Structure formats: structure tokens, C-alpha cells
């Protein structure tokens, strides 16, 4: 039988409850503030681009770009191919190099002077404006070998490399030391441990980091301005001839005074967004199954 309250477990009167509500409101507002620009961008691109794309579907994705920009109509085919070539090329250059660099920095370099220097330079490289990378590639590659998708790939790779190095090193750091010890205790060498234990354990994180870099690079315009030249027809050759990319088409068409061209810019913007989304989705499906 309970006689009466033996213990007083009620909290002291305070503003705790009110503060809790106030903080939740502030956080809710912050989330909304973040969502406003995001939703606005997606909405404006979808609402203005969807009509253009659907009006000529699927030719918008396949037809060549009209040579006379004031003429209405599809398409963006060569720009899609160009973007895939340039971004794919940049990925093939930057991701393996970046992962190898990060493995060196974290597993072998450690705190040595050389590793510190490389890490410092990679950090500096992230701060270099993309137009400077474009100029660099223009001077060292395009001036000598002419316009090509590969020049654009080089410029984007320069932008991606420090991002891939940084995120991969971060992921390698997160691999628990006891996994390495377990492998060493079974007689595995250092290289074997890195290849069969450390890298697979860090893979999901490395993929995420690389995807972020790829998605960022796919939308870059400035580094491509000097390297690709201008093309309106398909150019599947990675190493020769002028090419184009979705970002360049957005830039060129949006700054045009013709309504038809502006429409195409919106269509290209939507296409680029879908492309980035697709790349991310495929890579996620491919690589997260393992873990």
C-alpha cells in the first residue's frame, strides 16, 4: 500500500521545457532556410526545363545541337556525350590517382616531411579557382595538342584530385586499427592488409567521396571553356577535335538573347541534374551491396 510520496522526483521548476521548444523551433527554421534555395533551384529547373525536354522527347537527349542558336528545337545529344566523356575521363584519371595518393599518405607517409608537403599541396589545390585550372590546362595541353575532350578531362581531374585524396584519407583513418591488427596477426603483409582489408572496409566512404567529386566536376564550366572549344555535332573521340558539354551549353545558351536558346539552356540544366542523379544512383547501387 502506498502511503504517500516518499520521494520527490519532480524536477525543479525551470525554463527547460520552454527552452526545448524554442530550440526545436530554431532548428526547424534552419532546416526550412536550407531547403528554400534547394527546392527553389530544383523547382525552377524542373518547371522550365521539363517542358523543353518533354516537347521533343526523346530527341532532346539524342539530336544534335542546332548550329543556328536562334532556331527552336532539340537537342543536347553531343553535349551529353561530351559531359560523359569529359567527366568519365577525369574520373579515370583522378580517382585511381587520388586513392593511391591517399593510401600513400595515410599508410606509408604518415607524418614524414614529404607526406606533410604533399598533404599541404593537396589542400592548397582545393583552393585553386577552377578557371585557373582551365587556364593551366589551356597553356600546358590545349596550346600544344588542340581542342579535345581529354583536355577538359585533365582540367576536371586537377579539380577532383585533391577532393578524392582528402576524402579517401579521411575514410582510411576511420578503418578501425583492430582490423589491421587481426590481419597482421594472421601473417598478412602490410600491402596485403591494405588491399584485402583496409580498402574494402573503407570502400563505401571512398565511393561517396569520389561521387561527390564527380558530381561537382560534371557541373564545372570554367575549366572546360578553354579546353573543349565549341562543337554542335557528336564527337566521340576523347583525344581529338573540339567537343562540348552540358555545362558549356547551359552557359552559352543562357547568355544568348534568343528565347529558343534560353529554352535549350533550361533543358540542358535539367538534363545535367538528371545525369548527376543517375550517376550517383548507379554507383550507390553498385557499391553499397557489399557492405
Amino acid at each position: 500500500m502506498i502511503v504517500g510520496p516518499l520521494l520527490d522526483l519532480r524536477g525543479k521548476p525551470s525554463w527547460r521545457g520552454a527552452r526545448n521548444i524554442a530550440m526545436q523551433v530554431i532548428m526547424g527554421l534552419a532546416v526550412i532556410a536550407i531547403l528554400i534555395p534547394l527546392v527553389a533551384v530544383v523547382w525552377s529547373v524542373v518547371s522550365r526545363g521539363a517542358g523543353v525536354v518533354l516537347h521533343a522527347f526523346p530527341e532532346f537527349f539524342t539530336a544534335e545541337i542546332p548550329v543556328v542558336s536562334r532556331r527552336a528545337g532539340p537537342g543536347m545529344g553531343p553535349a551529353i556525350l561530351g559531359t560523359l566523356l569529359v567527366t568519365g575521363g577525369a574520373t579515370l584519371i583522378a580517382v585511381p590517382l587520388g586513392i593511391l595518393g591517399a593510401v600513400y599518405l595515410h599508410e606509408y607517409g604518415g607524418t614524414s616531411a614529404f607526406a606533410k608537403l604533399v598533404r599541404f599541396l593537396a589542400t592548397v589545390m582545393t583552393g585553386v579557382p577552377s578557371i585557373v585550372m582551365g587556364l593551366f590546362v589551356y597553356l600546358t595541353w590545349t596550346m600544344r595538342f588542340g581542342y579535345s575532350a581529354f583536355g577538359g578531362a585533365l582540367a576536371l581531374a586537377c579539380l577532383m584530385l585533391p577532393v578524392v585524396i582528402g576524402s579517401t584519407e579521411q575514410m582510411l583513418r576511420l578503418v578501425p586499427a583492430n582490423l589491421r591488427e587481426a590481419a597482421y596477426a594472421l601473417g598478412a603483409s602490410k600491402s596485403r592488409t591494405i588491399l584485402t582489408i583496409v580498402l574494402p572496409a573503407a570502400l563505401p566512404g571512398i565511393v561517396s567521396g569520389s561521387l561527390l567529386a564527380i558530381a561537382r566536376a560534371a557541373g564545372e564550366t570554367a575549366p572546360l571553356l578553354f579546353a573543349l572549344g565549341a562543337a554542335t555535332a557528336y564527337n566521340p573521340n576523347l583525344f581529338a577535335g573540339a567537343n562540348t558539354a552540358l555545362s558549356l551549353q547551359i552557359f552559352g545558351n543562357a547568355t544568348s538573347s534568343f528565347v529558343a536558346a534560353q529554352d535549350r539552356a533550361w533543358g540542358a540544366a535539367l538534363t545535367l541534374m538528371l545525369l548527376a542523379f543517375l550517376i550517383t544512383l548507379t554507383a550507390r547501387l553498385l557499391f553499397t551491396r557489399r557492405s
Partner: protein
Amino acid sequence: MIIESATESVKALRPMQRRAAPPLEETAVVFDAESVEVFYGSFRAVRGVTMKIYKNQITAFIGPSGCGKTTMLRAFNRMHDVIPGARVAGKLYYHGVDLYGPDVSATEVRRRIGMVFQKPNPFPKSIYDNIAFGPRVNGVKNTSELDAVVEKSLRSAALWDEVKDRLRHSALGLSGGQQQRLCIARTIAVQPDVVLMDEPCSALDPIATARIEELMRQLKSQFTIVIVTHNMQQAARVSDRTAFFTAELDAKNDQRCGILVEYDATAKIFSNPSDERTENYITGRFG
């Protein structure tokens, strides 16, 4: 009558205090440590450890936290090599070979001297791939051979019946006790000579602990086992020999350094220790 049987049961509870310890068989010497010291940078964690580890016996290292038990254990399979700044001094012979000799490869050493860690640390791979990792490192590629090794190791670790239907599932889905038995199976899959165990049961419940201890008793016919434990009952239950370590304050630099106080047959250590510090520790007066 009742009093008599009560006395009998008390006797049964404390057999070691009544009888003299039976003499331990002197099997072949696996490790011979002579004045071993381990440093982390300039910090000396353990000093002056001289002891012999005997074949097919279980040797337990006991002692309070920070007394260098684990540090000493890791010296036996050169696990300190991977820690920057760690260094082993003194002489440590393994079957007469200087473990820290100039031509000795740490990976070669660790293939013969396996280790089970305090926290179960399965690889984020399937159960099968966890066990097969060691044999693959040693060059076994044949699938049927690997299958056989996996089954044999899991059976030895008393885990086969629980996991035989999900060998391809992730090892991370197993319970803590199963994970630790998996780690033991993984260690014995490379057919080591010695198995070092660093507090293998400290993260497990009593039932899982009992299973691992049972496993250790079975495995000792094939391997030499050295176990670090915080649990004195465990040392008393499973080991043949016990080494008691403690930390001593060095007056010169005000740092604590681990020392080996007493090393003898387990029955002797727990019934009639020679050193007062050992007695204080095992009777719970200190540590």
C-alpha cells in the same frame, strides 16, 4: 554427519590449499624470454621479464591494469612492430631462434604465432572469407582445400553447427560470443604453433566465456596457449602455469613500469605463492 559433509565440501572447494600442487610436466620450451623490456617511445612499459613458456600448456598472465601483461603478450608475435615508437629490448627466443634477430620477418613470425584480441574483431566479410583469409594469405587457392579448412576450423572452435547454413553471410551478424569463437577459428585456420589470447572473454557473458574456456582446454593438445586475463578464476580454471605481473613505481622518473613478480604452476600460485605481492593480489587485498 551433516557437519562432516559440510567440512568435506569445504575441502572440495579449496583443494589447492589442502594438497601440495602436483608437479607440472616439463614440456618443450616454446618461448624463452631473458630480461625482456618493452618501450613505447621513451616510456618503459615492462622491464626485466625472464620466463619460459612451455609447449601444449596454457600459460596465464594475471595482474592489475597497466602492469604490462598485454604489452608482454604482444612482444611474443612482434605486434609492437606496427606501433610507431614501440621497441622490444632484451632477448626473446622462440624455439631457440631470436625473434627480434636481424633476418627474422615479422609476418613469418605471426604466421606461426597467432593472436586473439580482447574485442572480437571479425573482418567485415562473410564468415567463410574470415576463416579463409589466413590460408589465402599463406597461398592456399584450391577451393575444396579452403572449404575443408573452413569446416575444420569452425568445428574446432565449436561454431560449425551454429553457422554452417550461413557461411556466406556477414560475420558482423553473429553475436559477441560467436564472433570471438570465429576469431579463434580464424586464428587456428592457419595452423599456428602458438595462440596468444589477450583477454579473450572480457567482452563476453559467463556462458560464452565458459564455452571459450572449454575450447581452450581442447585446443591445448594442438597448440601452446598464452592468455592474458583480468579474471583470476579464469586463470585458475584453465591455465597450467600462471605469471603474476604488477606495476612498480620507478622513483627516478616517477613512471610506472610493469614487472614479473612470480611465475609458477597455477596450483602453486593460487595456493601457496612465494611472493607477498602475489598473495595480496590473489586474495583480493590489492588490485
